[in-house]
């Protein structure tokens, strides 16, 4: 299943939508329990380590993705843990001062299935794009000179926008 990503032009927003073959409560647990989170939140090829995790309004979290050579740390504060309104701030420590406000809602769509809707608000359009370039790629400074590599990635559609 592919995540549907909507990034309206000229706005600092990104919306994501994805369906899962699991009931909402189970997905909620996967977001709230550290021993479950480390099994899915990090990039597959990195180890994920949780430094701090206090899932209550006002509680902080900090986690690290790492490989043999480097680490990338992220932190933020939880504001709401409600299944239909999970709200937290998110900051990549390699790009300090650029914080996004992330909201996730887990909906029951029947038949033991769920839909996660995410809405992220960045401080600016540049931050939205910069957050991805700086913090969400595989962490390697690939640079954008290699246009042909980019073009190779275009072999399949990469998303939708409206």
């Amino acid at each position, binding site marked *: 299943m592919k995540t549907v990503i909507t990034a309206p032009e000229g706005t600092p927003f990104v919306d994501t939508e994805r369906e899962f073959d*699991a009931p909402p409560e189970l997905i909620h647990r996967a977001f709230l329990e550290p021993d479950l989170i*480390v099994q899915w939140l990090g990039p*597959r090829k990195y180890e994920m380590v949780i*430094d701090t995790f206090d899932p209550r309004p006002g509680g902080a979290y900090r986690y690290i993705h790492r490989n043999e050579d480097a680490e990338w740390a992220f932190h933020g504060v939880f504001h709401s843990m409600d299944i239909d309104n999970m709200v937290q701030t998110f900051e990549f420590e*390699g790009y300090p001062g650029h914080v996004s406000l992330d909201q996730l809602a887990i909906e029951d769509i029947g038949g033991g299935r769920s839909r996660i809707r995410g809405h992220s608000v960045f401080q600016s359009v540049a931050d939205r*794009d910069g957050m991805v370039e700086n913090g969400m790629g595989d962490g390697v400074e690939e640079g954008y000179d290699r246009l042909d590599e980019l073009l190779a990635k*275009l072999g399949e559609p990469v*998303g939708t926008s409206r």
Partner: protein
Amino acid sequence: MDQLSTVFGALSDPTRRAILARLADGDLAVRDLAAPFPMTQPAISRHLKVLEHAGLISRSRRATARLSHLEAEPLRDATAWLARYQAYWDERYDQLDELLARLQQGQATATPEMAAKPTKAAKSKKGKKQRGRNRS
């Protein structure tokens, strides 16, 4: 259609992507662009028109040849961050799928080899990249 949709539309065709890749090495006239393709110059011109409309190339006239020039900016805007964002979410949500399947099969919190146990291992609050750190 907004700019991003126009760009994606323009990129949806393999010939147009091949044209962009060739222009990455420098500006070219239509006849040079058409050379490697089993298609006529007018057909290539139609593709160029689509690319120009999407802002992916610009065209100028030098002597009698009309040169096509790659405009990388919309391509970066449209693809670089969005492609990475897509990959980021697809990967983490695919892993969530796998975890949810394990949980529903009753393997409660069984940790697969690839996942690490949560620890207090990270002492640094700096979050800077630290070279040479060993896996525990």
